[in-house]
């Protein structure tokens, strides 16, 4: 009996030690597909393609510090595991990627590994970029190499133990990452496949629009079922074609939102304002149409573990709705209309606005507290801004007005508490 127990313990111990070691060894040594690139005939066309892909992937937004040199890195990326600082991807030989080859760059994009083989943190969305073709990787690399070199030494990440141990990423990769270029679905149109390629690849939409698990991995990256963006605390709405997502959007509404930041159905705020301003507005209309066509076909998914606050007692609910209605009339109705119908595109409708009404309440709370602007775009250079009401309304008042608009005009979003409002009072700088 005792000998048998000893055997069991030995086997368990061996498994606890051997499995991770095996995973690390496998991740380090596994064969890395090199991809196939066609020879470049027209260098200028390749550069133009690379510039376009840099826009589509919004590389500059993360790889540029606020007010810093473009692509020279240094922007802090807050995560649940600590802060990462983006890297310098200008062609500076000492501090950037000036010594990289197109193969090195492919290795980073497709395999998530640095030039020296180190595992890259998945805040760099190689889990999406791995879908990009070798040809597009080369074009993007050629474009980045054509930029002015900027000397700016990368700042070390500030991650907590054990997340600061890069080698442990081998375990994460074993669980959540398999490299692989996009494989076209031959039963679908070329337009649909182009949309899928952009959404799953360069666009890395799942980085925000899919919920992440406790280890920072997207739980179902292809469903785009929406989720709260960790550390940023904004809700990225579901993008599938169901009733609670894009089902009620017309193609032209979605196209307008992606190109200009505003539309008949809603306007961008927070992180999506940046995405439209720096990335999507530069995409060709055909690509916007392809993205729209693809998103529409995503199967409806139930909202991811959205917070369901306790519904107040009927008398309390009535009191909150009454206060909310009065506040709405005083502060909101002039622009958003007495029935939440808005006056699009400058004042978005609140009735049937799935980003604020049917999902997690954080967007509505933050919009009321901090206001915000859609981006300046070619199609909408001087956007109307939502005023911040945080300085003049109490937590109770914000909770009442948000509860009111989430439960009026057909919206069924649940009530919001003053404590929830208070959580979002501070505005992060980045």
């Amino acid at each position: 009996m005792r000998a048998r127990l000893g055997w069991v313990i030995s086997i368990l111990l061996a498994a606890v030690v051997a499995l991770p070691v095996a995973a690390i060894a496998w991740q380090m040594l596994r064969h890395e597909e090199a991809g196939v690139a066609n020879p470049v005939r027209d260098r200028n066309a390749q550069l133009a393609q690379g510039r376009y892909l840099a826009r589509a992937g919004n590389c500059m937004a993360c790889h540029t510090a606020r007010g810093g040199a473009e692509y020279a890195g240094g922007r802090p990326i807050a995560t649940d595991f600590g802060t990462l600082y983006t890297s310098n991807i200008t062609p500076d030989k000492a501090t950037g990627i000036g010594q990289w080859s197109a193969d090195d760059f492919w290795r980073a994009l497709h395999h998530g590994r640095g030039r020296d083989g180190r595992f890259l943190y998945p805040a760099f969305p190689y889990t999406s970029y791995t879908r990009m073709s070798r040809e597009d990787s080369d074009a993007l690399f050629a474009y980045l190499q054509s930029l002015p070199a900027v000397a700016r030494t990368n700042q070390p990440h500030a991650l907590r133990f054990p997340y600061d141990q890069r080698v442990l990423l081998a375990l994460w990769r074993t669980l959540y990452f398999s490299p692989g270029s996009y494989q076209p679905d031959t039963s679908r149109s070329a337009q649909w496949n182009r949309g899928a390629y952009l959404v799953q690849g360069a666009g890395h939409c799942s980085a925000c629009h899919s919920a992440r698990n406790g280890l920072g991995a997207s739980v179902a990256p292809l469903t785009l079922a929406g989720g709260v963006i960790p550390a940023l605390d904004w809700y990225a709405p579901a993008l599938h074609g169901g009733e609670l997502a894009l089902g009620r959007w017309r193609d032209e509404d979605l196209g307008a939102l992606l190109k200009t930041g505003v539309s008949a159905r809603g306007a961008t705020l927070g992180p999506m304002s940046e995405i439209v301003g720096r990335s999507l507005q530069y995409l060709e209309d055909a690509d916007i149409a392809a993205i729209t066509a693809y998103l529409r076909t995503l199967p409806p998914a139930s909202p991811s573990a959205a917070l369901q606050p306790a519904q107040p007692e009927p008398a309390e609910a009535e009191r909150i709705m009454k206060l909310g209605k009065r506040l709405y009339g005083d502060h909101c109705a002039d622009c958003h209309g007495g029935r939440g119908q808005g006056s699009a595109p400058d004042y978005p409708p609140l009735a049937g606005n799935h980003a604020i009404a049917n999902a997690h309440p954080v967007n509505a709370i933050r919009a009321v507290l901090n206001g915000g602007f859609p981006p300046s775009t070619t199609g909408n250079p001087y956007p109307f801004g939502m005023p911040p009401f945080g300085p003049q309304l109490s937590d109770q008042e914000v909770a009442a007005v948000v509860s009111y608009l989430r439960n009026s005009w057909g919206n069924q979003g649940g009530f919001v508490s003053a404590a929830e409002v208070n959580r979002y009072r501070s505005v992060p700088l980045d």
Partner: protein
Amino acid sequence: MRLLTTNMKSIAATALGTWFAWTLALAQQPAVAASPPGMADRVAACMACHGKEGRATADGYYPRIAGKPAGYLLNQLQGFRDGHRRYPMMNYLLTNLSDDYLQQIANFFAAQHPPYPPPVPPEANAALLERGRILVSEGDRQRRIPACSACHGARLGGVQPAIPGLLGLPRDYINAQLGAWRNGERSARAPDCMAAIARELTPEDINAASSWLSGQAVPADYAPASSLSAPLPRQCGSLPQAAGVTP
């Protein structure tokens, strides 16, 4: 002695150069695009804190922005957007706005001239107020601190296009700005004249100057002067084109 004279000559030459370059730059400024319709509604977000037409609110912190020189306002808007000047709400709101829009916002508020409220009586003793008055109008020659009025105009109304007036601002706001300049939270394009001056001021100097400034009634015809009446005592990078002048 001889070294000192040479030094002073070079300072004077630099200052004169800056002045000429600036005057020249003013004459060459390009025409600004016509403003879009409904600007007041577009920038309603600004007025939530800065008050109707940018006249400030009674809360005693958010500054009046109405009637400030457009170049000054544009510098601040760009500074907030690009993180050189820090205030989370401002940094957040302006993140995704273009230079073109920020120029329009600056022009809009520069053109607003709502009335000023009467000043709040200062809670400071006479000696402190007198020290403030002297700092503002004469500076401190021994410590080589220039008078506020040397740059911000003899009537402290500011100077077009980029030097702000100093009257009609809350004491807390003035204190916070000078404090922010001292510790690097607020900065302007190099050479950052205000940062250099603020670092030479003691907390007592700042308290004296802000107490006196915030207690002054704003004259009815208060407005930025159209040009400097004398060369600036310091080089300031935030003035148009001045950064290109080599000392």
